[in-house]
């Protein structure tokens, strides 16, 4: 095993970086859009609407594209989902709207709802119009914690209803995982920030950066100072890999490296290992694997302890990984990390199988893969401490998530929550819906 890890920046030419991190799903051309739109049957009781967490009236917006009513199409989307532009790019449509499109049943080829949604919203943003107006001021003040999709969606809903909103964000930038987590080729250029500018332009929303709940502010303080609080902190923590050698240098949570990549001005300056091992089976595992491969890593292997069907990543994501040249190794689990001079150099894996009791067991056989970097993508967790209420009753947390009812109301009066910090799909589109519902609930609780 080489003593020195092979980590290097600038493995590719500028043209290769540009190609590898360009739009993974290029937009429809103005000629293609109406033709694709005309494939939609304009279903009655359309299954796609039901499958969209934000309930966008899909047949309606698609028909408007077909008739050339571009503005109307975009408004149908944005009324239901203020992050319609981001969702068009990042939604796993193969398991949401497009999975149930009747054309999937008919011919295995759904209407391309995601790309049509992107077409409509892109066109609209090009016009630079601000379509939303705020209702008369209510004099109510609401605190939102976390400027990810859930927090911003809620803030936008509340601002439109005439409330004043302050958003507290631990980072120096808004957007949450839209800005720090989503794979770079899904949201290219500065789209995430442009979309935020559009959303915030409605007015009535003040952003307070570098203000973390639990450190700079407390839930008790917010409840005292505001009429209502919306918690949207996502899952700021990561699960640790509990095996020997986990503290070696070069062993990192995938989302840290992804955040670095998303913020890198110049991808050529970002060091990447030659041989990479990723532990996990969800979309984050796919994202880190594909992105490091596209940065020029030679061998990238995802190690997952079960089979392809059990992977959290959708079939589409698995396909993207495979066509990007990533190897997916099933039925293995990490047992030990090897290293030299404090840096990781390899990983020892044990083969697994399902025992007679249906539970996963190790076979005792092992194999070792060389690795310059090992990324863990075994799940994020809620860091509960900051949301623990200093004063009086603590917030009800269940299964590592903040417990809420259908209205996104927590166990504490005046405190609501949504997005990844509550139990749900852990998708951008669900975070947006949670924020939308919470805004309505807060509004009705304050105007009752």
């Amino acid at each position, binding site marked *: 095993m080489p003593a020195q890890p092979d980590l290097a920046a600038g493995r590719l030419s500028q043209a290769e970086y540009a190609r590898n991190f360009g739009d993974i799903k290029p937009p429809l051309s103005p000629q293609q859009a109406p*033709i694709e739109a005309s494939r939609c049957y304009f279903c*009655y009781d359309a299954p796609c609407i039901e499958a969209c967490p934000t309930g966008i009236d899909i047949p309606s917006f698609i028909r408007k594209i077909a008739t050339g009513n571009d503005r109307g199409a975009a408004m149908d989307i944005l009324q239901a989902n203020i992050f319609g532009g981001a969702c068009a790019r990042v939604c796993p449509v193969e398991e949401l709207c497009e999975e149930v499109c009747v054309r999937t*049943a008919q011919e295995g080829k759904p209407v391309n709802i995601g790309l049509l949604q992107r077409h409509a919203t892109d066109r609209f943003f090009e016009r630079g119009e601000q379509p939303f107006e705020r209702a008369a001021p209510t004099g109510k003040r609401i605190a939102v914690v976390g400027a990810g999709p859930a927090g911003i969606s809620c803030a936008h809903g509340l601002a439109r209803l005439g409330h004043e909103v302050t958003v507290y964000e631990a980072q120096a930038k808004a957007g949450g995982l839209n800005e720090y987590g989503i794979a770079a080729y899904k949201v290219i250029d500065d789209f995430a920030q442009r979309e935020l500018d559009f959303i915030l332009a409605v007015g009535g929303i003040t952003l307070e950066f570098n203000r973390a709940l639990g450190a700079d502010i407390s839930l008790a303080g917010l409840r005292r100072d505001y009429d209502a609080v919306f918690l949207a902190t996502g899952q700021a923590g990561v699960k640790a890999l509990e095996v020997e050698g986990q503290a070696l240098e070069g062993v990192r949570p995938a989302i840290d490296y992804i955040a670095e990549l998303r913020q890198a001005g110049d991808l050529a300056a970002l060091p990447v290992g030659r041989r990479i091992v990723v532990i996990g089976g969800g979309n984050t595992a796919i994202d880190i694997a594909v992105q490091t491969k596209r940065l020029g890593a030679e061998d990238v292997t995802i190690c997952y302890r079960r089979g392809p069907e059990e992977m959290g990543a959708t079939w589409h994501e698995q396909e993207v990984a495979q066509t990007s040249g990533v190897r997916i190794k099933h039925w293995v689990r990490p047992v030990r990390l090897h290293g030299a001079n404090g840096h990781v150099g390899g990983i020892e894996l044990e083969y697994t199988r399902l025992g007679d009791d249906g539970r996963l067991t190790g076979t005792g056989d092992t194999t070792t893969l060389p690795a310059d970097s090992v990324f863990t993508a075994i799940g994020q967790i809620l860091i509960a401490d900051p949301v623990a209420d200093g004063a009086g009753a603590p917030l009800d947390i269940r299964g590592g998530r903040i417990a809420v009812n259908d209205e996104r109301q927590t166990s504490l009066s005046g405190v609501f929550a949504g997005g990844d910090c509550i139990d749900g799909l852990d998708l951008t589109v669900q975070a947006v819906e949670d924020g939308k519902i919470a805004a309505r609930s807060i509004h009705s609780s304050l105007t009752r």
Partner: protein
Amino acid sequence: MADLRTDLAGITSPNPFWLASAPPTDKYYNVERAFKAGWGGVVWKTVGEPIVNTTSRYGAVEHNGSRMAGFTNIELISDRPIAVNLREVKQIKREWPDRALVVSLMVPCDEESWKTILADVEDTEADGIELNFGCPHGMSERGMGSAVGQVPDYVEMVAAWCKKHTRMPVIVKLTPNITDIRYPARAARKGNADAVSLINTLASVIGVDLDTMAPLPLVNGKGTHGGYCGPAVKPVALRMVGDLARDPECRGMAISGIGGISTWRDAAEFLSMGATNVQVCTAAMHRGFKIVEDMIDGLSNWMDGKGYRTLSDFQGAAVRNFVEWGDLDMNYEIIARIDQDLCIKCGLCHVTCEDTSHQSISALRIDGERRYEVIDEECVGCNLCMYVCPVDGCITMEPVDNGKPYVVWADDPRNPANRVQAAE
């Protein structure tokens, strides 16, 4: 392989596919290409007194991404001198003797003009002439084209002049811009025309440019009505052909079917409805002459499959079933059937029947799953759901065996006329 040879009023061609009189047939160069591609005949672009064309000339209807579903033009007749046209006609006929070559003519409505041009055409040894009484735009303002075709007396008069002054078969091309196609056709018959061809284009405005606020196609900010053709007009043409085929007063006069014919199947329909051959314009202008290969091949394969050896084996076969409404069976009953295994749950059958028809398809949720079911007692058998359903064969219309006899409206007890009699 089926025999596709055709004889229209003595004009023979190796197959029934002719190019209609229009830009595809307006000079030696195109017609030679057409014959090389396999077209059985052409009707030369209408020749007559010199004219000048405008720019632009065409307009089109695009439907759901499908181009040229309907087509329009504001073009006049040939803009080249008569002598040049006829010289080329003569040359091509000599080089392609087995193909039909008919010259379309349009001259002012006086016997002398017709007599003069007929002599010149005869000299080319063309197979026949077609009288363009159809052009609905431009020429009609000068008292020609549809201005003649809309007055049966003129049609008869001009047809008679032509029969008098030429030995060539005379085809009268009819305009659809009239109330009842039988009148001009009967007039052509009285004037001893050998055949009619129909339809010429429909007077129309294809669209309006909402920016300049002028009808299309635009000619320097203004528009005029044009002649509509292409796939969209086929149903109009088919009906008119059928009307003539079953008209006793037109019996014996051959019909050349024109209007929206793009495929062998369209052609087979026209022939079944009584046409002897067909003419094509828009389909060729949309995709070029090569389409004729499939027209020939497809028709012949279909005929082989049906056991038809010659065109006359099925020509006119649908005419006897083309009846008046009053001859339909009032007791015939069908109802919709949904094949649940094919259904993709788009709900269109339900919502369209619910909103616009007879509320005969229920929208159910069974264990959360969508299910659409026909309410047999309510279904009137109108066919709407079958046509809106996007899945082929998913909704079928099944005959109901009600044991009732064939009864036409005149004999139907539900006819108020019969009820009055019964009360007496």
